[in-house]
């Protein structure tokens, strides 16, 4: 019953922020698992048999847990459990209006794992979720087998700072449809947009129904107090795979280079011809790279040496990670024109390792 309680202002309300209570809430005509976080509900999807190693996926800003379903379909038959959930402000979880501290998301994940009896997990994350994952790895690293940070950043570069401000301004002054329209070309390639142009209006409509502009605005405004994670990145000790699209101009290479340079147990993997949202645009390639990484971690063959690699285009190729020659920070590789001009490389090129 949705009747209003006139005395709500005077009601003593308890907020056990650090404790979760699993329940199965009956919402929207379907039973879906939720946990309680304070007075907020958090929706999650957990698939796969108990006792198996868990992969937890963290969404980007406008995403929801459903978008990882194909990943669950891929990894569950390969012996994993897959956990995806809507962060506060997303999908079917509660959408606070007033305040969400950025740090709250990592703390919430910690409690979610606690409540689900998941002692340790592999954590894979993209974009906004990547920041949460880095924060989690810094403060709750003992819960991780490994970390995968995709299309993300540890600090707001001047470019990202302005981009974020423009996105927030567009959301506040024009509205959610504007932000949706802006994000398609920011996230996806021309090829994808051309192939899906007819479907985009329906996708935008579904996104408009499923998202709430104010909740997204609240998430974005939580960056007002955001402190760079860079000074604490050295605290990340678990195997860390950093994945960056070759053509990601939203969170370009420099964002990932910061993470690679500070996390000793890491490697940077560049996804060829990929843009920001390659988990959606190139799921087969992404899943394969993730699988290669997790196999190495599980087998104990992972070498976190801060080297840089390029992912194979073909997920069925025998060799999946190709060494990166030249300066991975550049979009072009100038040819040497004369011996005199053959100056030493500005950066140390990665040592050739045995390819996985």
């Amino acid at each position: 019953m949705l009747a209003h309680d006139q005395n709500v202002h005077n009601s003593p309300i308890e907020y056990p922020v650090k404790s979760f209570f699993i329940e199965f809430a009956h919402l929207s005509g379907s039973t879906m698992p939720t946990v309680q976080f304070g007075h907020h509900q958090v929706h999650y999807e957990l698939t796969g048999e108990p006792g198996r190693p868990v992969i937890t996926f963290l969404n980007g800003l406008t995403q929801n847990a459903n978008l990882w379903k194909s990943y669950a379909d891929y990894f569950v038959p390969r012996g994993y459990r897959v956990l995806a959930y809507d962060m506060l402000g997303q999908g079917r979880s509660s959408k606070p209006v007033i305040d969400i501290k950025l740090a709250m998301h990592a703390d919430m994940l910690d409690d979610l794992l606690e409540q689900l009896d998941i002692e340790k997990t592999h954590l894979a994350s993209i974009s906004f979720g990547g920041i949460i994952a880095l924060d989690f790895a810094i403060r709750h690293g003992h819960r991780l087998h490994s970390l995968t940070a995709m299309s993300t950043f540890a600090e707001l570069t001047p470019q990202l700072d302005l981009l974020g401000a423009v996105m927030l301004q567009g959301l506040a002054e024009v509205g959610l449809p504007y932000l949706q329209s802006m994000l398609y070309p920011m996230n996806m390639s021309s090829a994808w947009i051309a192939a899906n142009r007819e479907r985009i209006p329906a996708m935008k409509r579904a996104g408009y129904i499923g998202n709430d502009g104010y909740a997204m605005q609240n998430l974005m405004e939580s960056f007002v107090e955001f402190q760079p994670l860079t000074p604490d990145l050295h605290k990340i000790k678990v195997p860390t795979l950093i994945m960056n699209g070759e053509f990601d101009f939203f969170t370009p290479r420099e964002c990932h280079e910061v993470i690679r340079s500070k996390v000793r147990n890491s490697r940077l993997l560049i996804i060829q011809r990929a843009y920001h949202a390659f988990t959606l645009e190139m799921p087969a390639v992404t899943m394969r790279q993730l699988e290669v990484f997790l196999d190495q971690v599980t087998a104990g063959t992972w070498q976190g040496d801060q080297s840089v690699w390029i992912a194979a285009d073909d997920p069925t190729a025998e060799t999946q990670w190709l060494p990166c020659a030249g300066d991975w920070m550049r979009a072009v590789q100038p040819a040497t024109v004369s011996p005199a001009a053959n100056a030493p490389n500005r950066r140390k090129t990665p040592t050739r390792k045995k390819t996985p």
Partner: protein
Amino acid sequence: MIDPALFDQARDRIAVSGFTPEIQTKTTLFLCTAKNGNLMFHSSVQWMQNLNVVQQFILSQYSRELEAVTLLSRTAQWSTDPALAIEGTRIVAPLMMAWGQIMLPPGPLLNPQAAYRGISLGHAQLARIRMAPVIPDNADPLDPFVVALQRIEQENGRMLQTQIRLLKNIGTEIPLEEREALVEQDQQLVDGVFSEFLTWLATP
């Protein structure tokens, strides 16, 4: 939350029947009731002391809500079926009751908690009541009623900023957690009413 299927069902029905007088009447009755509640609240608090710059936003929202009600009422092709008014009143009753509680003496002008509740309920209405997804692709984009719905939706998104800023920043003794719980409660109230409205809209 609102089941996405409810939007689809309402849209699909309108795609078949078009924006008939019955559909326009249902929509107008519902939206005008919600907006009249917010309008009544804003007319009450717009001369509150010490609002400073906020007063401009409240006066502006009052005017735009009034404009929306006028726009809808003037563009709607009204049905003469009195049963629609009776059923419409039943569906929106929880909203009318909530606004009525907010306006109880001494009223939000003199009752800070009622004022906060009014902002919270206004936020829920502007944020959660969305008509754009029920407009089918085959609707005439120049149809006056369709134009009115689109413009009202856009304005809702902009007006919402007033509520967002007030909910975040207004000086109040209500603890943060309690304020969040209050906002969530109002969202559930509006979601429930709007869900029932969408079901009604989809029903011939």
